[in-house]
Structure formats: structure tokens, C-alpha cells
């Protein structure tokens, strides 16, 4: 039982964060609260992906060096997997771009409809 929990607890934490973000996206009526829910969802997906790159007893993926020359030979079991870190750097930049453009669109909506609540905007469209 303890082995089962210790094997999977990082995924459970990410699922809890995913569900918090998902609930905020589908049940809140203010548009900015929906945007914050989307942000939480993206952060939870990034945590989930990076947590698959850890190895037992491993350190940061930077080799031991002194001014560019290696101090000891590189062993694969000693360093973390660098590939998920690279992919998540791209995902962070995409998150920034999405949030920036979404905030610009929200400013235009406020100027046109004078409100940021979903039911008032839908009522003034019909």
C-alpha cells in the first residue's frame, strides 16, 4: 500500500490541480476568472510532464566542470533527463503568448459591451 502511494503520488497532485483549473473554467461567470482557470490548467500540465524526468539519486542536468573542462566522466545514471525540460521551456513561452493575446481581446470586449460578466454580454447580444 505504501509502495503504491509512493509510486504515484506526484501524478495525483497534478490531477487535483487539473480539476481545480477545469472547474474554474466551466462554472465561473466572470471572464477573467475563466482565464485564470485556463492558466492553472496549463501550469498543472507542465508539472505533470516535468515530473516524469526525475531519476533516483540524480542531480541537475549540468555536468561538473571547471571553466569548460570536465572534472569527472559523465555517467548517465547521475543526471536527470534533459528532454522534458526543453519541451516545457517552449510550452511556457506559448502560455505567455496565449495569456497576452487573451487579455488584449478582453480589453476590446469591455470597451464594446461595458461589462465582463457572461450573462450580461449574452443578453446584450441577443
Amino acid at each position, binding site marked *: 500500500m505504501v509502495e503504491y502511494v*509512493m*509510486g*504515484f*503520488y*506526484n*501524478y*495525483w497532485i497534478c*490531477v*487535483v490541480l*487539473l*480539476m481545480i483549473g*477545469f*472547474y474554474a473554467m*466551466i*462554472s465561473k461567470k466572470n471572464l477573467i476568472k475563466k482565464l485564470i482557470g485556463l492558466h492553472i490548467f496549463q501550469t498543472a500540465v507542465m508539472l505533470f510532464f516535468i*515530473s*516524469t*524526468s*526525475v*531519476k*533516483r539519486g*540524480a542531480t541537475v*542536468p*549540468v*555536468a*561538473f*566542470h571547471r571553466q*569548460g573542462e*570536465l572534472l569527472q566522466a*559523465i555517467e*548517465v*545514471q547521475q*543526471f536527470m*533527463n*534533459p*528532454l*522534458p*525540460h*526543453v519541451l516545457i*521551456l*517552449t510550452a511556457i*513561452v*506559448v502560455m*505567455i*503568448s*496565449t495569456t*497576452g*493575446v487573451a487579455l*488584449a*481581446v478582453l*480589453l*476590446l470586449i469591455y470597451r464594446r459591451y461595458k461589462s465582463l460578466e457572461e450573462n450580461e454580454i449574452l443578453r446584450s447580444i441577443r
Partner: protein
Amino acid sequence: MRVLALLIVLFTGGLLVYGIEDMPRWADPQSPPSVHVSPRYIEKTVEETKTPNMVTSVLADYRGFDTLGEVTVIFTAGVACLLLLRKETE
């Protein structure tokens, strides 16, 4: 409405927890992501590109084409923001 949203969220959470049983364990050195391509990147990074930081050498040298796409994405987001929020002149 809120009760319906809560039920949907709990159902999706239950499905995800049920599907987690096939994932590799926490901190397993023999998990599939760490076995196929990463040992080559970790071993050859200093002798092929004199860069002890493995993340920078993979990001900028071995996978440099994806980073070109990413710089294009952030440039497009900046241009989109400027186009949406211009001052209206006559």
C-alpha cells in the same frame, strides 16, 4: 448548474486517477523516457558541443529548429497585440 459542473469535474478526475496505473513509477531510472534518446544527449554533449549545460545544448543545437518555431510564436503574439490595441486616428 454548479452541481452539474461539480459532478462532471469529479467524474473526469476519477477517470484520470483510474488511468494513472499504467504510468511509470516516481523516480524510476529505467522508465521509457530516460532510456531511448536521452543517454546519447547526456554522454555526447561536452565532446560534440563544448557546453556543460545539457538543456541549452539540446534546446539550441540538437533541436534548434523547434526553437526557431518558438521565437516565431512569440513574435506573432506581439504583433497580434499591437494590431488589436491600436489608437484610432482619423
